[in-house]
């Protein structure tokens, strides 16, 4: 809760029209693409999966009241939708992976070795599907898109610098202190 509120406060000062968007984006649950990123950068996968589960269940109870207090508007995120999404997109793949490791370890090993390439193919399909839905927006509001890409760059750079400064962990080190 602290980080979304802090980012909301900062955006209210720097660029108020984006304050609600920043609050929603920073307050939403951890994305289902996070395990891929965790494996890609060598982060702690169990922690990431735990975060996905906890934040997905918590967000229907946390985010709407915050938005109501700060903006006076009402919206709801049905808990059952989040549970169904977790079941379909997280627990079923998790169980499938567990069964594969238990009953077909050779296949599990091959899948694990080639997971990056297959993951990239699936990311390509997801991206094409998602961006096709908002395609017209890129042509109708091109300047706004450019502004948002620049803001994303600033947002990411500030976040990376902050984490590096506070934890001493950079892309060249791991959380265990090893240097890559």
């Amino acid at each position: 809760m602290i980080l979304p509120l802090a980012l909301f406060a900062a955006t209210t000062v720097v660029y108020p029209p984006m304050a609600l968007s920043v609050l929603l984006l920073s307050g939403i649950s951890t994305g289902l693409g996070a395990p891929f990123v965790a494996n890609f950068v060598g982060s702690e996968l169990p922690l990431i999966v735990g975060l996905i589960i906890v934040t997905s269940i918590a967000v229907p109870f946390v985010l709407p009241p915050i938005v109501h207090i700060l903006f006076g508007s009402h919206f709801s995120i049905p808990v059952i939708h989040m549970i169904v999404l977790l079941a379909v997109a997280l627990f079923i793949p998790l169980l499938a992976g567990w069964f594969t490791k238990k009953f077909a370890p050779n296949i599990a090993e091959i899948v694990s070795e080639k997971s990056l390439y297959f993951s990239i193919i699936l990311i390509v399909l997801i991206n094409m599907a998602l961006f096709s839905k908002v395609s017209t927006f890129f042509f109708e509001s091109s300047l706004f898109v450019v502004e948002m890409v620049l803001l994303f760059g600033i947002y990411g750079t500030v976040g990376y610098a902050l984490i590096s400064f506070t934890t001493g962990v950079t892309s060249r080190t791991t959380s265990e202190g090893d240097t890559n």
Partner: protein
Amino acid sequence: MNSSGMLFLAVTISMAIGVLFPQFSKIFAPYILVWLGGLLFLNLIQLNTSKLISAFVHARQIAL
């Protein structure tokens, strides 16, 4: 090409295809949950279940 470069190219090109060729890209839209489930299967197969349970037992990091 290293994996970072490959990923960057794949993401950039797929975004461009989605924006520039929406009619073609919409073919894949109804199956987003399938692609997402597959992505998680590929990455969660490496997850040690006991470590996931441990992450909840020692939940300080999650709480933070």
